[in-house]
């Protein structure tokens, strides 16, 4: 790692709990361009602890871009300025010496702030619990060629399945809509024979839960897909719409 040679000014959202109104606080931090954005926050927190102040609460887990825990809106963009990366995979070399960086939590009624930059995303869990699974155990693996699935379909299902449920889509959407997330889950399961059997029941249950959680409606701006760290395509929302209308017209 090279020497600390970037001087940054941070404006970080501080909020005690969900009921607190919250405010920005200014910090100065020295960081190396090789650090990840979260490592830069670790430096800030060490600094705060040494000064006897409260460290900034922020979510993180794997720090290798696959768990979906990190969630920071950096200068107005979820996961920062780079395409297709999570906050933990964003490096300080994407910024310049002397920059002022504004960091806010995901903002949506359905994601209440727990503390500072950490938000409660259990609304996503409840959507999955409403139907985002195959309810019958499939048992031991059968012969790979017993059920033929064209490569294109398998690829499409896999692409949708790469969603890590981080919530950047909700955060980026001007309507705080969760349709890219729900679309990815519905698409992934509807495309494969194991999930197809319950497709209609699933999509209605998941959309009902999505609406009950207070997420907005999609207006097809495309912001969700543009900011998605896994680059889930907008076509999953069309699939969600199609599956939902088909199910409703069938009387589900």
């Amino acid at each position: 790692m090279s020497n600390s040679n970037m001087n940054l000014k941070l404006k970080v959202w501080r909020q005690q709990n969900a009921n607190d109104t919250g405010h920005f606080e200014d910090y100065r931090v020295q960081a190396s361009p090789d650090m990840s954005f979260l490592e830069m926050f670790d430096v800030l927190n060490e600094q705060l602890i040494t000064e006897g102040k409260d460290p900034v609460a922020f979510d993180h887990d794997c720090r290798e871009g696959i768990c979906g825990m990190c969630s920071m809106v950096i200068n107005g963009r979820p996961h920062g300025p780079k395409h297709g990366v999570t906050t933990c995979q964003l490096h300080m070399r994407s910024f310049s010496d002397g920059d002022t960086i504004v960091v806010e939590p995901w903002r949506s009624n359905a994601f209440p702030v727990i503390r500072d930059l950490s938000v409660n995303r259990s609304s996503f869990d409840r959507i999955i619990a409403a139907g985002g699974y195959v309810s019958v155990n499939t048992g031991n693996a059968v012969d790979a060629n017993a059920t033929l699935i064209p490569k294109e379909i398998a690829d499409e299902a896999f692409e949708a399945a790469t969603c890590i449920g981080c919530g950047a889509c909700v955060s980026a959407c001007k309507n705080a809509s969760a349709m890219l997330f729900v679309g990815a889950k519905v698409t992934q399961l509807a495309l494969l024979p194991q999930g197809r059997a319950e497709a209609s029941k699933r999509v209605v249950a998941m959309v009902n839960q999505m609406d009950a959680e207070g997420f907005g409606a999609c207006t097809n701006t495309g912001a969700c897909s543009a900011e998605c760290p896994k680059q889930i395509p907008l076509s999953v929302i069309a699939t969600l719409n199609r599956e939902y209308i088909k199910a409703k017209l069938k009387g589900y």
Partner: protein
Amino acid sequence: MKLFSFLFTSTIGRKWLMGLTGLFLISFLLVHCSVNACIFFNDEGETFNMAAEFMGTNWIIRSMEFVLFGGLLLHIFQGLYLWKFNADARKKRYSVNAGSANSTWYSRSMGILGTLLLLFLVVHLKDFWLTSRFTDVITSGEKTLFQEMKEVFANPLPVVIYVLGCISLCYHLLHGFQSAFQTLGINHKSYTPIIQSTGRLFSIVVSLLFAAMPVAMHLDWIQ
């Protein structure tokens, strides 16, 4: 009716109704624009008056007027509802917004553009629809619809209002045309690019044609 209640109770149902009514209104625009474009024959409005008379007297077309207003009202009410609903989904706003980094300004401004269109529509309906349908100025033969247009567009103010209306229409359609297909669940790797370019072409051509009408009349290019 319970089968269709989702069109008014769920987010996707409401959006579906927006998409359907949107596409219906687009089909109306095509007819409206084609009929009006008859003024460009520059034959003192002869062809245009003939087409306008057919549209004003044919009972099928007249009955469709009710469907059209029904569709328009549904589109407006669902639109306004969703606008409020979506704004309420994020009570605490961001301090820094970087919307232009991930979407077009007009895709984020459909509510404003639609409201501008609604205001324009009030002026437009008062200018022509009320005159032609609810007074006997046209039916009595006192003057033709073409003459009515010439009179209205002799003033510069309506011309400016109409051109602004057409600009709002253009941006509303630029997003709305392809967005309607996506909402209806039509997204395909070969057809979606065709839908998108057709949408762009339609938005620009129709809006330009509509905008050219008051301008051409005001400048006496059309006699």
